[in-house]
Every structure is written in C-alpha cells, then in structure tokens.
C-alpha cells in the first residue's frame, strides 16, 4: 500500500516537473544516458543544481554532478579535461582560451554588489569610499556615518570570478587590504555578512536576499533591474566553457540552459536571462 502511495507521489512529482516544462527542451535528453561533470563558479551552483534536478526527473539516467571551487577551478579543470563543463563568473582570458581551446557560452547576466548586514545603517557609498574601505584606509563605520565600530572586511579567494569582476569594475583595480577575512564562495560570503553586523563584502547580485542588504554604489542600488537596464555598472556574464565545441550531453545541457525553460530557472534563481 505504502509503495503504491509513493509511486503515486512520484508520478505526481514527475507530472509537476513536466507540466512546468511541457513539450520542452528536455525532450532532447530522451533516451540519453551518462554523466555530465560540472565544476567551477560558485554563483552558478543554484542554477546548475536546479537544472540537474529537472533533467534527472525527466530522465534519471542523465546525471549532472556539480562541484564548486571558483571560476579558476572551472577553467582549469575543463582545460585539463578533468570535467566536461567549467563554470566561470568572468570571461576567460585570451591566454586561457588559446591554451585550452575553450569555447564559452554565456547563459546569464549577473552583477556584483556590495552587501552589509541588515542591522547596519550605512546603505550607500561612493566609489571612492568603497575603494578606501577595501584598501583599509577607512577602517571604522563612523567615518561612513555609521556606528563607532571597526569595519570587518570580507574578501574572496584569488580564484574567484566574482572577485576579479569586483576588483576590476567596482574598485577600479584598487587594492584589497590583506587583513580581510577570506571566504570561499558566494554563499559563504552571504552567510558571513548576514551574521556579522559590522561586516562588508560583495556577492553576486543573484544571491542577494533578505539576510543581507545591498549597498548603493554612487547612488545606484545593485538589484536585478538596475543591472538589467545598465544603470548599475558592476555587471558580468555567467559563462560555461567546454574544451572545443560542446558535444554530446554537454551540448544538450548548455542548450537546455539557453532554452526558455533553462532561462526560466536562471531567472528564478535571481539572475538575468540572456534571451
């Protein structure tokens, strides 16, 4: 009896998934079998996991494994042939592309926003202030109109694509103080800032939720609309790379991400679709 109930529950679950994606790009996975190994950018993880789930619900024989590590890991591992698809939150450099013969697909647009704890009263910074905060020359919230307390800086590891974009476009290649705490992913940055009332850091705009408050940069709050209309300058694409042109299951996964259903996942997870 229980078994039957479970079967029904399962069919119902499948039905839901199918109903959402009726007559969909998932059809391409029909009859396929195999594993797609994905690694790299941590901003991509929520979308990749959701895509993996929908694909496995449609055809349990197609499995997508998702590893994080950062954009550097993605590009390196796909280049070395250790994974099939490497995610990166920045465009691969000329050197990387030529060395590994990478082909990139951009499937979402994202921004990188400065965030503080919701308890913090500072909600706006100028580029200059931001540079000084991250360089360590401004080290107290008082100097920014906040409470009299030291600023806790949070930074990402040097392999992060989010960091590369942030340093280039928001800090204008300004220095980051070496005393900053280093966290390993967008998710970790969000939870660290959410828990630290005196912390400041930066995350992918798609990851910003109620646990952290975005800080306006030169008067523009980093949100999906402001990135979309171009008024918030620190924007970037989310890329997936393959060695050579994508083939087989990898190509199907990338096509799926670019299909209307895939783009819907992208938007559900807080990013901007490219189509």
């Amino acid at each position, binding site marked *: 009896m229980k078994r039957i109930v479970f079967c029904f529950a*399962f069919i119902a679950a499948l039905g839901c998934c199918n109903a959402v994606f009726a007559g969909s790009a998932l059809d391409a996975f029909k009859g396929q079998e195999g*594993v797609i190994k994905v690694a790299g950018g941590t901003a991509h993880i929520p979308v990749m996991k959701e895509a993996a789930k929908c694909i496995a619900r449609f055809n349990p024989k197609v*499995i997508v*494994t*998702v590893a994080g590590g950062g954009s550097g890991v993605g590009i390196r591992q796909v280049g*070395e042939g250790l994974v099939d698809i490497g995610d990166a939150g920045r465009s691969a450099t000329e050197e990387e592309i030529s060395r590994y013969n990478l082909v990139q697909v951009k499937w979402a647009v994202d921004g990188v926003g400065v965030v503080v704890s919701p308890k913090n009263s500072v909600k706006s910074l100028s580029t200059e202030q931001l540079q000084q905060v991250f360089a360590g020359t401004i080290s107290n919230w008082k100097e920014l109109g906040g409470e009299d307390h030291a600023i806790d800086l949070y930074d990402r590891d040097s392999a992060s694509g989010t960091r590369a974009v942030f340093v280039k476009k928001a800090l204008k290649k300004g220095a980051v103080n070496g005393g900053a705490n280093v*966290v*390993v*992913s967008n998710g*970790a940055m969000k939870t660290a800032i959410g828990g630290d009332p005196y912390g400041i850091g930066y995350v992918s705009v798609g990851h910003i939720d109620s646990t952290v408050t975005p800080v306006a940069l030169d008067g523009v709050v980093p949100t999906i609309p402001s990135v979309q209309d171009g008024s918030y300058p620190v924007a970037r694409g989310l890329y997936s790379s393959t060695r050579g042109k994508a083939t087989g299951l990898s190509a199907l996964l990338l096509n799926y991400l670019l299909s209307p259903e895939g783009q819907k996942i992208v938007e559900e997870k807080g990013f901007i679709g490219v189509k």
Partner: protein
Amino acid sequence: MKRCAELLLVIFSWLALLVFATSFLSLFVVLLLRVRGLDAVSLFFGDTPPVDALLHGLPVFDGIYPALLGTVSVVMVAVLCAVLPGVFTGIYLAEFAGPWAHRIVNLLVDVLTGLPSIVVGLAGFSFMVLLHNLFPGAPGPCMAWSALALGFLVLPCLVRTTETALQGIPAELRRTAPALGATKVQNIFFVLLPFRAKDLLGGVILATGRAAEDTAVIMLTGVVASAPGMHSLFKQFEALPFYIYYMSSQYRDLAELQYGFGASITLLLLCGVFFAAAFLLQSYVSFRFRGSSWLQK
C-alpha cells in the same frame, strides 16, 4: 604551603573535567536541539520517495542519502585497499624486519601517521593530474582516487594495530607451532593472527572511522557538492563531511541549516559506532602514536 598546592591541584583537575565535560555536552545538546523537529525521511531523501531511491536508484536531491552512501562506499573501498599493505607491513615490522630495516620503516610509518591529511590529499591530487597528463584516458577526480588517498591516510593505523597485536603474544604460544614443524609464515597466518583476530578487526574498524571523518583528502580528490544517484567507483561522489562543510557556509535558509545539523548528527553517529566497536574489540589501547613499550603498561 605544600597543602595549599595540593589542594589547588585537586581543584584545578576537577575544574578542568567540568570545563571539558561541559564543552562536549553543549556540543551534543546543541546538535540534538537543532535537529529536533527535522523529519528523518526528508533529511535523507529530500522530496524523492525513499522506496524509489533505495530500490530503483532514483536520484535524490536535497537529501543526505547520496552523501551517506558516498561516505560509506568510499570508506569501505579505502579500507579494502589499505588492509593488505597495512597488515603486511605490520607483520613485517613485528616479525621480519632486521634492526636497520625496522628503524627505517618504523620512522616512515610514524611520519605518515603525523602527516596532515591535506598534504596526503595534495599528493593524491598531484598524482592524479600527473597520470592524467601522461595517459589522457586516466580517470579525473573520482571515488577511486579518494579511496586510494584515504587508504594511504589510514595505513599507519592498520600497521600499528597489527604490529602491537603480534608483539603482545606470549612466548609460549609463539613457539608452539614452530616446535611442531610449522614455518614462520604458517605460524603467523594460522596461529598468531587468528589469536589476535579481534584486535585486528578492531584496528580495521578504527581505520574505517578515521577515514569516514576526513574531509581534506576527499575534497581534493573527487568529492562534489551535488552528485545524486551516482554509484560508481570512477565517478565523482558526495560525502557527509564535505556536505557539512558545504552547508556550513552555503545554507540559504534555516531549513537548509538544519539539514547541516542533521548531517552532523548522522556523521557523528556513524563515527561513534565505528569507534565504539573498535574499542570494544580491542583488548587494549591501540590509540597511541607508536607502539613504544612504556605506553602499553
């Protein structure tokens, strides 16, 4: 004055015990409190029906079943790989090694015992990449690599258990079989080792527990954040310790955080069972860094 010192020592000791016990109790209480109200089925299987996951291998998302399965299988493979070299090296140290060979192998096993697991992981990773560059068909990060590296990590544990088990055998028993015409090897495998079978099994289980809790080695050699429905030696996998590490910083809401606590309890129980079993089986402490005689007293 002396009385005072004595009294202080007593007070200090009991205070230390109090602090120690409180810290660990609070650790457990916190874990128990935080998993209260967590539904076990959804913790393990997420929204996948358990029967389908167990019997039909349907991929499980948002549950720790794949991680549990990954940990159990990688640890079993690791210990399987390590058991023969470990036990044989132990036999070598206890029965065959001459003074110089004993000194060298003993030193190396000690170094291996103390080697940080991330260094072992780094070595495993580098070996994997080297091999991959030499033979492009060689597997990338996968469970087999993790198991090999983990096996290497727990090797000294097996060596030491075997060695001390053999050393502790009374001379009468040791001489009986050879007196009846058995060779040295026959004596070891048919008399001495069976006599210490419990200790050996204890050592193997202890090694399993050590392998199950290690995160650094598998993180560098093949574990991933999400690999639902994977059951292959040559594929990437999920594992409980890495799941906990991942959840500690990636949780999106309190429900996901609670999954982290649930996974912690699961791993704690798993390791606790291994350790308890090992201690029950072993008749004496096999917990030391090396088999020096003064520790056995």
